[in-house]
């Protein structure tokens, strides 16, 4: 008499096996952080090079001392007000000659503040003893000022925000980048917006303590 069917395998311990694996992965998992603020460092400066002349009013001075206190344009300031102050400075558009005037700025046009976003430079100076968390917070707030203004301009020109343009560029499939007019148009848009508000954020050598 032929056997009718193979005996059924008991699957009751399947859950135990799966649990074992699950616990192994739970314990070994470290979800690695893979995001951050992107910056570009300046190339090494040649010795004894003179700094290019920049008008005092076009510099937005941000100082952080060793106690993590903030000094902006020689006045103490809370970090939460920094973005607003930076936006006001960048968006001021105080230039009055045709060459320096800023057509798209919506600021106060204060002649004592920056001429136009192309001229405006934010200078960040840190004490060596300042903490990194303060540094990254200040940096984040300043980058946020640029992003806010770029979003505004991108919305005005193209009806989408700068961040959406960037996200679209990052999500573009690698294989379809070359000779793709849509992709080139997108890159051009981003460059145009970045040209209107170039991220001129200069970091000086940090000061020695004291």
């Amino acid at each position, binding site marked *: 008499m032929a056997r009718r069917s193979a005996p059924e395998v008991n*699957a009751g311990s*399947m*859950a135990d096996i*799966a*649990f074992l*694996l*699950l616990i192994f*992965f*739970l314990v*070994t*998992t*470290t*979800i*690695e*952080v*893979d*995001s*951050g*603020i*992107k*910056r*570009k*460092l*300046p*190339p*090494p400066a040649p010795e004894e090079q003179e700094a290019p002349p920049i008008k005092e009013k076009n510099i937005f001075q941000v100082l*952080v001392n060793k106690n*993590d206190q903030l000094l902006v344009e020689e006045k103490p300031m809370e*970090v*939460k007000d920094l973005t607003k102050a930076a936006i006001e400075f960048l968006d001021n558009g105080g230039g009055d000659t045709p060459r320096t005037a800023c057509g798209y700025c919506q600021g106060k046009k204060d002649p004592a503040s920056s001429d136009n976003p192309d001229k405006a430079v934010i200078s960040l100076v*840190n*004490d*060596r*003893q*300042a*903490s*990194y*968390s*303060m*540094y*990254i*917070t200040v*940096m*984040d*707030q300043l*980058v*946020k000022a640029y*992003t806010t203004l770029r979003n505004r301009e991108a919305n005005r020109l193209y009806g989408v925000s700068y961040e959406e343009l*960037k996200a679209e560029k*990052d999500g573009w499939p690698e294989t379809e980048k070359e000779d793709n007019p849509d992709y080139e148009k997108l890159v051009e848009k981003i460059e145009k917006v970045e040209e209107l508000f170039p991220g001129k954020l200069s970091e000086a*050598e*940090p000061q020695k303590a004291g």
Partner: protein
Amino acid sequence: MSKFKKKKSGDLPAISTASLPDIVFMLLFFFMVATVMRENELSVENNLPLAGEVEKLSDKNKVAFIYIGKPNEKMQKQFGTNDVVQLGDKISSVKQVQDYVNTKRNKMNEDEKDEFLVSLKVDRNSKVGILTDVKQELRDAYALKVNYTSKEGNSMKNIKK
């Protein structure tokens, strides 16, 4: 009375555990997919700060990691409690940053070299001073693209005491 009792005990069905493996497997797959095996074993404390304006890191092969922070408990006997730099899996001096970056970059394809990026994983309690020294070395090595790696979140929370 007895009739009533019988009905109650007889009607309580056992909960089927047949779908338990499925649930567990689902969790298992989630963790298997989400797991990124750490490339370097950390010898320093590395509690990253939060930042709002973050961008994703590109391909891992184009990135060199530099960790900065206090040595962790195991390493404190040897290296003290001041901030140190970790390159690869060992604690090194700031002067070795250039060599490390150049070695990493030379392993890359020629046409991808300008996409090379350095990810700075700096502990939130460390000082800016050592970071500046590292940045100076990176400038000298012409590794100009950096990424201050931080978790996504509200950066104002970093400085709340």
